[in-house]
């Protein structure tokens, strides 16, 4: 009799675990739906802002379960037809991806964001828009940007340069803009 009871306890534990997994799945679905909607809304705004027009949205690929659904990007830069994202130019692709990253950032800012030469494919006009967007977001997060672009360098508070005076040994030099300005004045 005791053995049967023990078996029932274990069975109950299994059922509880299944229930827990079900709850986790439900919570995951709810959170994903909520986050997806918010990111999608931001993505549309950021995209329009970066491209000064156009439309873009995130679309869920068809799946029986929301947890297995993929996320597709539909983008229409201003003056262009709605087209496959892979047919966009390098700069457009970069701006679209940056839009998505910043859309997520607007919903859930991370302690810091490291951008490694993401502005490389952007032209001067787009670099200015990109910089404006970063300046706007930098109140909530710390941005670490690796760049060769002088305009992007101008928006930083601190500038670190990496040089190699001696072969094989890199050296960093730093400039704090405010301090430098006060020294010049």
């Amino acid at each position, binding site marked *: 009799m*005791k*053995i049967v009871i023990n*078996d029932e306890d*274990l*069975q109950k534990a*299994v059922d509880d*675990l*299944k229930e*827990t*997994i079900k709850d*986790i*799945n439900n*919570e*995951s679905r709810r*959170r*994903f739906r*909520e*986050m*997806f909607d918010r*990111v999608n809304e931001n993505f549309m705004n950021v995209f329009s802002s970066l491209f000064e027009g156009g439309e873009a949205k995130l679309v869920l690929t068809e799946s029986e379960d929301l947890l*297995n*659904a*993929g*996320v*597709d*990007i539909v983008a229409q830069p201003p003056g262009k037809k709605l087209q496959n*994202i*892979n047919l966009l130019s390098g700069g457009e*692709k*970069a701006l*679209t*991806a*940056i839009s998505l*990253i910043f859309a*997520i*950032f607007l*919903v*859930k800012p*991370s*302690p*810091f*964001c*490291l*951008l*490694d*030469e*993401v502005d*490389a*494919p952007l032209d001067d006009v787009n670099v200015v828009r990109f910089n404006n967007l970063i300046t706007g977001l930098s109140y909530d*997060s*710390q941005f*670490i940007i*690796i760049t060769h672009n002088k305009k992007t360098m101008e928006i930083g508070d*601190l500038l*670190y340069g*990496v040089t190699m005076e*001696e*072969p*094989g*040994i890199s050296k960093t030099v730093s400039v704090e803009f405010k301090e430098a300005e006060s020294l010049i004045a």
Partner: protein
Amino acid sequence: MAAENPLPRGSSARASGETSAKSMRGSGMEDVIFSGSSFHKPSGMAEVSLTFSNPKGDTLQKFADYTEIAVTRRLYRSGESIYMINKIPVRLKDVRELFMDTGIGGTGYSIVEQGRVEEIVSAKPIDRRILIDDAAGIVKFRFKRENAEKRLDETTQNLLRVNDVLGALSEQEDGLREHVKRAEKYLDLQEQSGLLERQHLCLSWHQAGLNEQKVQELVQVHQQQQQDLQSEKSVDETDLERLKLEQTQLGTQVGERREQLFKTEQNIQEAENQRELEKQNLQNVSEQRQGQEKELEELKQSLTEREKERADTNNRSMELAERLGEMQAKLVIIEEKRAEENETLQKSAEETSVLQKRLLTVHTGLTNQTNQKNFLDERLENLTERQQRLQDQQLSHKNLLQEVTLQVSDREEQMVTMRLQKEKFSGKLAELESSIEDQHLKLIGEEKKLEDLRYQQSTAESRIESLQQIQTHYEGFSDSVKIFMQLMQDNPVTKKQLGVSGLLADFITVPADTLDIVSPVMAEVLDWVVIERAEMLPQIEIFCTEHELGQLGFVALDRPASVPKSAGTKGIPLPEFLKFKEPLQEWGEKFFSRFALLKDENYFWNEADKKWPDSPEEWLSSSGICLSNSSASMGKVQSGSLGFLQRQQQIIDVETYVDDLQKKINEFESELLTLRERHEFLKEEQETREEESRKLEFALLSGNKELEHQQLEERRMQQTVSQLSKDSEGIFEEMDSSRLKENTAAETIISLEKERAELEDKTNQLQERIQLQQSRNDAIAEELLAHRVSLTETTEQQKNTEEKESRLNKEYEETSLRLEQLKTALNEGELRLEQSRNRIAEIDGSFEEMLENRTSMKQELEEDIQLHEQKNEEQTLLSQKLQERQGHLENSVSVSHQESIRLTEFRLQREQLEDQLRKITEHTPEAILSEMDVEASDHKKMGRELRSLNESLNAMGAVNLAAPEEYVALTERIEDSNQ
């Protein structure tokens, strides 16, 4: 949590648990460790730290108390990697858990590298989803879910295992319970046996003690007897020794006599032997001679027989050779006959083989045809079934095709409607676009006008500002003039004392529209200061010196031409008043020379008279400027034309103009606003229309795709239906061809069966013929065999005869040789016989002498022997007596020894029993015996009972005595498992 230290991309990725060397731009993780340079040693490890401030404590519970969290990774050249959080070594899993749902980490959105942008765009939708998952905090849930699933699997496995274990334990419990019962019974019996064994052992011990005592007494008796016997034995031994000595002396004497006798007999024997040897030799030689003579005779006889036999053998050999020739000739004939028969048989066999082959072919063909017919029957049945199935499929596909066709036509109608709607929208959109374009153009025109007005307004405003500036601050004049006039305005008393009236510019009026042209001509004199009296110049000079003013030009109203040249002070060049008139005049001349030119260009409009002045004087007069040298005329200028007032008026005019412009601008702006609103409205409408158009386009596109899909489906269905029809037709054709083939096969089978019957008849006939031939052939073969056997026998006989002949020849030669040898040996034997007879005669002479010596020696020896025998008898009697004593002694010793052994055995038995008792109980045997009624106890009965108990214990076989403890442990384990 906020990052404080900016780090390069690789560093932060490394610290947050990056394990891919490729993302660090290295072939291996050791490549990130400093490898040294010309002046620096290589490093053994690389370390990177990422410090986060944690003022709110909004991180994992275990790190919530830290205000700063430093995540460190240290990588050694050996490949070992250490992760630390606040200098405490942790696992990679802990670091990942820390960064989970923060966006930092390998899959997070916080670290965007060069290739990541392209990766985000070109990634699969399911991979792109990870970014959203990370932001939504699902990663933690996924982690939890994976853990839960893992636990679920483990629990299920545990459940199964527990069931198995419990089942096994239950079975084990049942088995153990039986063991426990057996063990308890066994232990009970063992206890009884132990008690009985102890008592039995004690009784045995007691019995052994009594026996030991008895044997001890016996041993003492035997030891006494042995001592007595030993003393008697010693006396007898002394007598025996004496007798032995005497006997030894006699024995020596007898031995010597015997030796002499033996030598004599030996000599006699040698002589006899020699004689016998010689006799034997003689006899041998005689016998040998007789044998040789006999052999000689036999050899002679044998030689005659051999010669006869040789002649017979030769005759026989010749007969056999003749017979062999005959038989070989006959054999050739028989073989020829047999070859003929074989040839005939071969032909028949070949014919039979051909017939059999043909029969086999026919049979195979028949089997094939039958198989084919059966196969075709089956095929026909299959085809019929398949045909039926295809017809069913065709019917269902046709129904489906009809449905799809209906769907396609519906879809096409929908598409047409949508296209019409789209065209309508496109028309509306085009209208809207043209309307927006018009509005836009109009807006641009209005905006341009507004821009012009604003420009005019701003020009006028700047003019007002400029005039006001001039009015108040003498803007546009040199610094000396500006400061001087500012000082005059600030100090009206000084101004009055010095008699300063103002600047010449204040006294000149020029129409606004001609100002730009006239002012360059007049500029040279406009900043001259007008004073009332020339005598005030020295004071003015002092004032200018005090205030460090630069060069100034003065016009005195009372004395314009006669100012002394010396009137100047050091450092500041005073104006040369002598030149006062001349520049003015020069300016006047210039003015007059340019007047004609300016007049032609209608610059000098007289606003008061509303006409153009005829001469420069008239214009100057009307404008208040007098170029005469008289003070009166200058005073007229002063009183008649105040530029200040005019500028005031001018400002007012410009302000009025600005107001008008503002009104116009406002009107334009309101109009523009209306236009913009209209434009915006039109744009919004356009966007709405465009959106609708896009939606329609989307719908159209998806409709088109769906239509294409359905059309494709329809075509596919049609193809399937046509394919099914084709298949059905093919099956029909195949069925017809199969039937045709089946008929052909049936006909072929009939003809083949007929052919087979004919062939079988032929084959039977041939086989009968072959059998006859074979029987004939067999007879010939038998005959041939008999002949061959006979031939072989004859050949062998001939061979034997030849061999015998050669053997006889050889024997004949050997016999002749032996005959010669025997003759020689006979002669030698005669010689030896004579020598032996001589030697026998010599031996007979010495033999009789030796016989006499022997007789005397024998008599002496017999006497000694008699004496020796008497001594021997005495010794024997004494020895017998001694032996008897020795026997008694040995018996006594033996008995004593046996008793001693028994005593030792009893002692050992007692010791063993004591040891056994010590092993099974702590009590001494005396103590146990004291509790027992020794007299009443039956030792044998007790032994029987003990044996019976031991047998019962042995009959129980192997018993697990640890079963009760195991049962208790098992019960506890089951209880634990249940808990």
